[in-house]
């Protein structure tokens, strides 16, 4: 049972870290919105799913790669990768802002209860998923291979592939930039102010609606980056991939302490590793079950997460 885990420990670890970084970026979409609104961004999983199609469309329809064409190299590779990353972030960011406008804004202005907002967000997320299902005829959509998955080196018997390396490095950079943005920029300060005390922030002249929209946008951008890495590694997308990924990313956010950006980082990495190890031991079909059990255990014993939910004190 544990033979696989011991045999392939290092290659599993590397895969887990790469998956973990994808989770980190998606869970930023949950955690930032939660920090500001104290509400789960239910549509984030579908924002992720729409983002993956941004990359696929860029590769397939803008740069005309097909399943049989040669993978790109050199400068062209860089251009294609960066433009599909930007496209994914653009699509996801736009979707996130749209979600805020449709599902949250009106209800917030009315001051209705949380249940109503939650249900309206679920409604938007179903619509997003169904629109994509009808557009793609419920079929999985493959992405052409743009990046050749060269094995760079071998460390302790584990192959280090180019796409994993790119995912880990680029995701870390994006995470770092976002953290700096929240910590240093004027807007970041406003976001933190709103998450500490909404009323006080409003009195100090913070434009609440703009802050909330920006938060959705930034969360969407992070999620969009995650969808680019997802497509680069797995080379496919489907209308229903959002659910599993969203559930895992949410678990990661809760694990680290939702509303806490650094928590999302460690939560995402922990969950990525945990999930990969668990599927090696139990088999991949139990992956989602493991994630759920982790979620329940965390909520049971440490509902504030590893790094605490108290946004005021711990937020980076």
């Amino acid at each position: 049972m544990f033979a696989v885990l011991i045999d392939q420990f290092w290659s599993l670890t590397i895969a887990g870290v790469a998956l973990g970084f994808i989770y980190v970026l998606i869970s930023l979409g949950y955690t930032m919105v939660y920090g500001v609104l104290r509400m789960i961004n239910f549509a984030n999983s579908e924002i992720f799913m729409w983002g993956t199609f941004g990359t696929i469309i860029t590769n397939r329809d803008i740069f005309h790669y097909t399943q049989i064409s040669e993978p790109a190299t050199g400068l062209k590779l860089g251009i294609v990768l960066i433009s599909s990353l930007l496209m994914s972030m653009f699509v996801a960011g736009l979707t996130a802002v749209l979600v805020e406008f449709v599902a949250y804004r009106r209800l917030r202005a009315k001051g209705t209860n949380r249940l109503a907002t939650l249900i309206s967000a679920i409604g938007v997320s179903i619509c997003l998923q169904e629109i994509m299902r009808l557009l793609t005829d419920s079929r999985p959509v493959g992405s052409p291979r743009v990046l050749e998955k060269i094995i760079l080196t071998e460390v302790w018997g584990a192959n280090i592939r180019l796409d994993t390396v790119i995912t880990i490095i680029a995701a870390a950079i994006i995470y770092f930039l976002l953290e700096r943005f929240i910590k240093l920029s004027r807007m970041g300060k406003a976001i933190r102010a709103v998450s500490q005390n909404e009323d006080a922030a409003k009195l100090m002249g913070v434009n609440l609606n703009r802050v909330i929209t920006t938060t959705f946008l930034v969360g969407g951008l992070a999620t969009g980056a995650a969808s680019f890495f997802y497509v680069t590694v797995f080379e496919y997308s489907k209308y229903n991939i959002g659910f599993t990924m969203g559930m895992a990313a949410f678990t990661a956010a809760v694990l680290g302490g939702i509303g806490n950006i650094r928590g999302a980082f460690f939560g995402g990495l922990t969950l990525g590793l945990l999930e990969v190890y668990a599927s090696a031991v139990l088999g991949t079909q139990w992956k989602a079950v493991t994630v759920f059990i982790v979620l329940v255990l965390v909520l049971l014993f440490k509902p504030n997460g590893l790094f605490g939910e108290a946004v005021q004190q711990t937020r980076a």
Partner: protein
Amino acid sequence: MKIRNYWNLRDLGASVWEKANRPKRVVIATSSIFLVGLLPFAGASFLATPIAAYDAVLVYPVGVFILMALGLNIVVGKSGMLDLGYVAFFAIGAYTMALMGTHTGLNTWEIMPFGIGFAMLAGVLLGLPTLRLRGDYLAIVTLGFGEIVRLVVLNSTWSKGPNGIANIPMPPDIGPFKFKLEDQKVFFWVVVIMILLVIWMIRRLSIRRPGRAWEAIRQDEDAAELMGVATLKYKIWSFTLGAAVGGAAGVLYASKNLFIAPEMFTLNVSILILSCVVFGGIGNIWGVVVGATILGYLPDRIRFISDARLLVFGAVLVVVMNFRPDGLLPRKKREKAIVKSEVNA
């Protein structure tokens, strides 16, 4: 004011009911139940559905949707907890029926208590750790639970995995009433009886201690706790009763369908049932019945909706929440007034 009152179906119905004395009420109730019982005979009228058999549509989706929506309404409407994994209890009921029906030789009515019992047990097991949590966490955990039940059934051998379980026995005949696959009138009557039982149960509970406790929890849990309401206990009760109704619906569904497979118990079912509750009016029994009837029946009547059924339901959730957050037939105004003054304070 007076003119608007005619459009306010809820108040109109309530005023007719309040004004009537006991014999009149009995007449109203029995005649409306009788009319509902006659519904399966209206298959030749404009009510007929173009593709699916009309009397089958009345049982599933319409009847089963109403039953489940009433069960979910105990959780979401009465005590204000968002349960997104309601399909899990439906699945537990259905698989209890399928496994016991094919292995033990018990009939549907003997299995029914087991189905309800297992669903309630699952409700308690899930409720104990999670009902301490705040609303949105509960939503996510229940969402996960619904998926987990489906995944466990899909990946296990005892449930025959994705192939599903076939040859589930039909319910035994009750006197002259025979259960047949091609003529589902009797199934419809059974569903109606179950719906009436559930409505009766909810109405009884609503005016007694549990109902008042749920109302207090829904409006302000902290205040309820301070006033001495055992909030966790009543939340678990509400969750478990909702689960029981879901389990009963599952047993009946498996016995009617004769075949079940994991793909029938996806998240979509939970969402559909939730849409029924929200669309009709959270917390109001008649609102829920109307909502479930419309959302269960229309996709079969108007065929072009049925492809985009979920899209329409998602849009319904958004539009209703934005423009009529209390649904088509909202609960009584007195309660709304309390909530409003709370928000303004």
